[in-house]
């Protein structure tokens, strides 16, 4: 069994690791122990600011600070970043294209026991609709680390979607390369392609193994950058496999599935099945149980891949 680390933990560690750059400033909204920005605070207290439980103000304050040459990481739960502070992100950060990186942790159902009010399942949809915004949803700790590094180097706003739950480390750091907007083919296959993001990438890898046992060869693609989306890797997968499954811990409306559907329908339409939250609110419970209840497991991806293959053969 691979090591398990939450992407929020990797985020906090990455901020501490790359934090020697004096342009970097970290803001939090009274959640620094949970978002793990506290890891940065311990090392660079003079560049850490707690902005209190006031997310809207935090985002616009981050914009003002970024206008003075800082690279500001503003962190809170995804719900309160993309939800509560949407308009500050849109008008004060994205419109002037300021260097604010939004570290949005506790995204998706895997928040667990806190329940629906804290489980953002709309944030990808909201954030990717804003011009100038880059949306990144890392799959594991290694990808998170390099996503943070890329966000620091990128000129302009970035939304980093991170999770609370410990998830398997799927990448080997020595050979890993992160490039904004470039998906990663994790495993070749030609019957169907599973395009996943966030914690669903490791579920997709499990699904691939299960499908293999039934003689189905599935390609697995990690789309860590949802915007700008890697259209080339998606169209290539559509051409070469003819059946696509998307998998995300997000509403099927507006997230990765929608982004992939947009690329396919404009370029190379093939059957598509979307694994994700089926347009309903989450609830309290243990993360693993919730992922099962809401159809976000490897078994669900297997089922959807078979459905996509059937659509392909029915054409």
């Amino acid at each position, binding site marked *: 069994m691979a090591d398990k680390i939450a992407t929020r933990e990797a985020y906090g560690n990455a901020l501490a690791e790359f934090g020697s750059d004096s342009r970097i*400033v970290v803001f939090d909204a009274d959640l620094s122990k949970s978002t793990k920005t506290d890891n940065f605070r311990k090392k660079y207290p*003079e*560049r850490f*600011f707690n*902005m*209190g439980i*006031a997310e*809207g*103000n935090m*985002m*616009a*304050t*981050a*914009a*003002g*600070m*970024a*206008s*003075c*040459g*800082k690279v*500001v990481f503003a962190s809170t739960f995804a719900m309160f970043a993309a939800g509560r502070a949407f*308009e*500050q992100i849109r*008008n*004060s950060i994205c*419109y*002037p*294209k300021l260097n604010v990186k939004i570290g949005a942790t506790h995204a998706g159902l895997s928040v667990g026991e806190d329940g629906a009010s804290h489980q953002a399942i709309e944030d990808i949809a909201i954030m990717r609709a804003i011009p100038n915004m880059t949306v990144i949803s890392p799959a594991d700790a290694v990808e998170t680390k390099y996503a943070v590094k890329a966000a620091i180097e990128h000129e302009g706003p970035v939304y980093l979607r991170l999770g609370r739950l410990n998830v398997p480390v799927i990448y080997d750091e020595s050979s890993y390369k992160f490039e904004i907007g470039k998906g990663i083919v994790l495993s070749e296959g030609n019957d169907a392609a599973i395009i996943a993001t966030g914690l669903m990438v490791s579920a997709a890898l499990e699904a691939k193994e299960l499908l293999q046992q039934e003689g189905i060869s599935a390609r697995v693609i990690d789309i860590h950058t949802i915007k700008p989306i890697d259209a080339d890797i998606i169209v290539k997968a559509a051409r070469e496999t003819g059946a696509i499954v998307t998998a995300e811990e997000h509403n099927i409306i507006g997230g990765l599935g929608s982004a992939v559907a947009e690329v396919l329908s404009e370029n190379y339409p093939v059957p598509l099945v979307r694994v994700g939250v089926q347009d309903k609110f989450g609830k309290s419970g243990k993360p693993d149980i919730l992922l099962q209840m809401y159809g976000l497991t490897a078994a669900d991806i297997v089922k959807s891949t078979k459905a996509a293959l059937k659509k392909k053969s029915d054409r």
Partner: protein
Amino acid sequence: MKKPEIKDLQKYAVKVRKHIIDEVYSAASGHPGGSLSCTEILTVLYFAEMRVNTKQPLWEDRDRFVLSKGHCTPALYAVLAEKGFFPKEDLLTFRKADSYLEGHPSMRYVPGVDMSTGSLGQGISAAVGMAMAGKLDKKDYRIYALLGDGELQEGEVWEAFMAAAHYKLDNLTAFLDHNGLQIDGRITDVMSPEPVADKFKAFGWNVLKTDGHDIEKILDSIRQAKDYKGKPTVIIAETVKGKGVSYMENQAGWHGSAPNKEQRDQAMAELDKVLAELEVE
């Protein structure tokens, strides 16, 4: 720069008012009422107080100004153009599709604009962030922000006020353009933010009051704000919405509507008369 005489500043203020009328008239839209009420404040800031460089609008040690009541671009653009950030002729392109002079200020398009604003409540937060950056970098630049009194109804303003006091941002001075009117009428009828001075004090700010159309008093308030250590200062400027144009004064209806040709000509005649009097004296 040698500080201009009070009378020069008064003349600038009239010129700014004339530009405001022309901008809004040529655009056939825009916000004259609140622009006319903050004219002296902006004139004093840009012509007597702020350290800016028109040749280098993004100079990192400059003082910064955030128009939190972002709809008052006619006043801001007029002052920036008079100051020399961009040609005065461009003012007549205000709000037009082929112009860079957006209806609400954009820091990406307009030289001299330090923050994109327009959605009320956000500008003061951005100003807080700038002041925090100044403290962090141990720079001596100062941050100014201008809020509308209707804007105080936005909860974010109070989040920003709380943060500014918490971080002891004495390099930040906010002006309140206290003209008492908003789109739907008197602020006290729509949703009263009063008593504003008590609220600001309770939020930990140094509170000053001034006549927002008296240039000497505005200058004096800014001097006091600069001398005050340990707290941010808010200057409550008592103003008249539509100031300087008889038929616009104290009329909420002129918040966001443009004069017709006849009204424009009347406004110009009134302002030209004031300017002529200032020239003679």
